[in-house]
């Protein structure tokens, strides 16, 4: 709890620096350094490919740069960043779907193939199976599973980031775990 309060205080200080034209660039550089890994891994788990993740992460931070002045401190900075990252990732996948002119399921298969061919994936066969199972989940369940299982994010924070209720998130996570378990049993 104290760590969370410290982080909130540090974010508030960063925002104050960002609003000062003299320290604006320095503050933003610090913000990117602080959150780049968390944002990158969140995006990477959705879009799978490193190059795609790199493009999306850059878009996320450019959007943050443009809109940080309008950020209301009623919500926490990193939940706001997560929300932008999730939205940008989903927009990217939609765009990809349009470009490929195929159904969403086929994009998922394309992502699965990419996962196997990627040189930036060091997981063994079981981990590949788990990623395959995650890719077969519906969009919302996939995001919820990644945030809860890998990031170990609290439901309350997820609710803030994804603009939904805690109950809905729990249900989504429950369904996601059931489907993954079923996939692993069959394969």
């Amino acid at each position: 709890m104290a760590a969370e309060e410290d982080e909130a205080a540090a974010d508030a200080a960063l925002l104050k620096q960002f609003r000062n034209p003299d320290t604006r660039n320095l503050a933003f550089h610090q913000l990117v350094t602080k959150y780049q890994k968390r944002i990158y891994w969140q995006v990477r788990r959705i879009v799978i490919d490193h190059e795609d993740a790199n493009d999306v992460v850059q878009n996320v931070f450019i959007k943050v740069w443009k809109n940080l002045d309008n950020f209301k401190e009623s919500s926490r900075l990193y939940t706001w960043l997560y929300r932008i990252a999730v939205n940008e990732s989903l927009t990217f996948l939609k765009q990809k779907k349009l470009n490929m002119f195929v159904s969403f399921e086929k994009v998922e298969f394309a992502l699965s193939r990419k996962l196997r061919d990627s040189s930036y994936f060091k997981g063994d066969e079981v981990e590949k199976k788990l990623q395959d199972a995650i890719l077969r989940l519906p969009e919302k369940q996939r995001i919820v599973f990644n945030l809860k299982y890998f990031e170990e994010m609290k439901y309350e924070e997820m609710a803030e980031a994804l603009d939904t209720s805690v109950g809905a998130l729990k249900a989504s996570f429950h369904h996601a775990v059931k489907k993954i378990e079923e996939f692993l049993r069959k394969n």
Partner: protein
Amino acid sequence: MTGKRNIEPEKSNTDTDRWNPLDDAPLLRTIPKSNPFTVPEGYFDNLPSQIMAQCRENTKRMPSVNYNRAFLLFKPQSIFAVLIAVIALSVYLRREGNKPLEKYESIAATIPDSVLMASVQNNIAYVDVSALENMVNNQDEVLPVNIPDADIQDSSGGQIINYLINNNIDASDIEKEL
């Protein structure tokens, strides 16, 4: 079925800390929770600088970006407006092209008679006057001259008798000669 659906979320809402779906997923629990993805070496060292460079570039280009956005926003409407204008113009020209006579008649109707007469007199120079005079003076050459023959050819018996009387010619003399 409906009752079961209502019970499950209730359980999850009231038992936030203890309830964990992973308890019912033994296979999933055997998989290590490590991150199987990797990035190129030094990627996170360079990313902030790359992002800062893009942000600075973005700030510099801001006015033109806004202009381009506005242009893109109205582009479809502009194309549509131009298309409508082209279609309307082609329809108008086609309709006008189909009735040129009506157009000239309507223009002529607006010109007073006096102006029309003056225009004809002024343009009389275009007529060959000497040719007209020759036609009038040489009218004999133009008209047929062998009128008696024509009369004879078309004359009846009464006219022949009148001719013989007027010229004191005796019919018996004619018979003798024949």
